[in-house]
């Protein structure tokens, strides 16, 4: 395993998150390693079931165990492994140094409590702020994320906000303690495109302002192209390719990354032909194929792909790929 670089704020090493199913084991995350560097946006891309959300939830130890268990893995932050630290200590980190926002703010916010209660609680717990100071701080953060009339709106309940505004409330809540890493799990997937553009611009602004790193989990390559510095592509619980955003889009090496790029319609390109769809279906994580997990859908698969699962190979200092055939890529 590579040693984390000095500007690394979070290092995930050989993380495995398995679930006990009925008579079998579901390998949701199967040996994932990545670094999150100070101030960068790392995008984790993949389709549903690729393990991208579970990987992030596991990094914050938010997957209930049981049913989940970790046969291996370390999540290093400030020289300590989050996976083995006492519950009380990780609770102190979550919502403070490490924060997370979700796709659906309505299920992440408590419908019974006002926004004020939910926001001030964060500051009272992590910063021991007085109620009055916490309320002032919460109002100024709501203003910062673009909620008009925040001093009045703070006493509303989540259902009184629109979808885009709720997402802003959740972002405000996550950023109250100025985290070092913000995990954003499909933060704009449920929003209309014009609102998505607002939220992405807001996250980018706040990231620069606070110098925090963002781990952006998404299936949308357009969002990745606009927001990410580095990209990790996940398939069947593993990272199959990792590189800078330029490397991934200009020189994709893994056949899955290429397939994903080719199958995405591009609004600024005048094509009317067929989209290059990837044949077949993503594998069932309870019954992964032998060898490379992508091999049944891969047009470059050869015999050795069906025998052993490929290891990550270094291409450039920033570009890694897990494919036996990538070296001979045209």
């Amino acid at each position, binding site marked *: 395993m590579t040693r984390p670089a000095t500007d690394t704020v979070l290092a995930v090493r050989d993380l495995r998150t398995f679930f006990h199913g009925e008579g079998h084991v579901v390998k949701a995350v199967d040996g994932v390693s990545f670094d999150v560097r100070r101030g960068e946006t790392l995008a984790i891309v993949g*389709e549903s079931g690729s393990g991208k959300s579970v990987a992030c939830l596991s990094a914050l130890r938010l997957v209930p165990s049981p049913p989940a268990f970790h046969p291996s893995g370390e999540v290093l932050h400030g020289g300590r492994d989050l996976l083995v630290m006492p519950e009380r200590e990780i609770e102190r980190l979550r919502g403070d140094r490490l924060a997370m926002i979700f796709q659906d703010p309505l299920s992440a916010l408590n419908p019974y409590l006002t926004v004020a209660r939910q926001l001030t609680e964060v500051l009272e717990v992590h910063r021991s702020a007085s109620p009055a100071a916490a309320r002032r701080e919460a109002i100024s953060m709501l203003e910062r994320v673009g909620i008009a009339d925040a001093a009045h709106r703070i006493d509303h309940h989540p259902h009184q906000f629109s979808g885009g*505004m709720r997402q802003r409330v959740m972002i405000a809540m996550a950023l109250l303690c100025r985290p070092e890493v913000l995990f954003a799990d499909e933060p704009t997937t449920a929003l209309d495109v*014009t609102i998505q553009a*607002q939220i992405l611009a807001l996250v980018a602004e706040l990231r620069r302002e606070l110098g925090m790193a963002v781990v952006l989990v998404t299936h949308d390559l357009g969002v990745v192209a606009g927001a990410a510095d580095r990209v990790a592509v996940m398939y069947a619980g593993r990272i199959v390719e990792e590189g800078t955003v*330029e490397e991934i889009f*200009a020189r994709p090496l893994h056949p899955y990354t290429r397939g994903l790029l080719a199958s995405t319609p591009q*609004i600024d390109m005048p094509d009317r032909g067929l989209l290059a*769809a990837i044949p077949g279906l*993503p594998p069932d994580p309870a019954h992964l194929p032998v060898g490379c997990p992508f091999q049944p859908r891969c047009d470059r698969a050869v015999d050795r792909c069906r025998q052993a699962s490929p290891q990550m190979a270094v291409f450039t200092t920033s570009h890694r790929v897990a494919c036996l055939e990538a070296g001979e890529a045209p």
Partner: protein
Amino acid sequence: MSDDAPPLLEVRDLVVRFDVVTPGGPWGRRRTLTAVDGVHVSVRRGETLGLVGESGCGKSTTGRAVLQLEKPSAGEVIFDGRPIHEWWVQRWGGWRWDHRLRDLRRRMQMIFQDPSASLDPRMTVEAILAEPLRNFALASGSERRGRVQRLLEIVGLDPRFIRRYPHQFSGGQRQRIGIARALALEPDLIVADEPTSGLDVSIQAQIVNLLGRLQQELGLTMMFIAHDLATVRHVSDRIAVMHLGRIVELAAADRIVTAPLHPYTQALVAAVPVPDPIRERARPRLVLAGEPPSPLDPPAGCPFHTRCPVREERCRRESPPLRTVAAGHEVACHLVD
């Protein structure tokens, strides 16, 4: 596709209103929501018309009202020269289709967004696909089974799967079953309402390709409703952009994307991210401030003026009509010459 031939479908000043109850008072407040507010569009034979817009803009309700799955409150829907909006009768305390509409149903079918909700979980694929054939007495016995198997082949599923249930298929495969069911009666018109929205990118491409192939092979006329402008552009000949129940711009698909005239279309196109970091970061940013207005409480004047970056005084007062500004290009904006 000839421009002189009469269109297969003509929608004239279509209005759909719903009675809704909103909070207020001990029993709530009864209000009228105008979901579709004067949609005017025609679809030529063999053409795919894309209908795009954000959530709540009335695009799905338009599609449902075209097929008479919602009774239009006003306006006309002319299908193949017939005024099908009139083919309703009042019976048992509600509006029902009359027999003519029931018969015509063969020729107009719908593909829904969520195939897990639109396929009966207790029916086998064979029963699902045979039901329309049985309803219209089109085939019986072994002939029916043969047609069901052929339908599965057409949509790219293994015909041996006919005894399986919907839950035994993946999301993409279920959408193929939904498409097969829509094709079972060999319709002329298909309204596809967000047929790829719930699917993964690689599967979306499969379904988009399938719909494109079927449209060409079977000469289908299609109304493709979606919020994703990149996909709509890929499948459509022309695109109608909807905002708050109205069409604000209508033109050839390439024109809508490369030379949009309405400020809302311009913002919508600019907001669709391009999957290429160099091109995406070089594109002009045009982020709309604010949120779409509620259809329960539409603003006076132009419905877009609350978010419009180029609004003028008259936009607050007068609602602009949809008018032709160039051959085949219609726009509803005061500021477009």
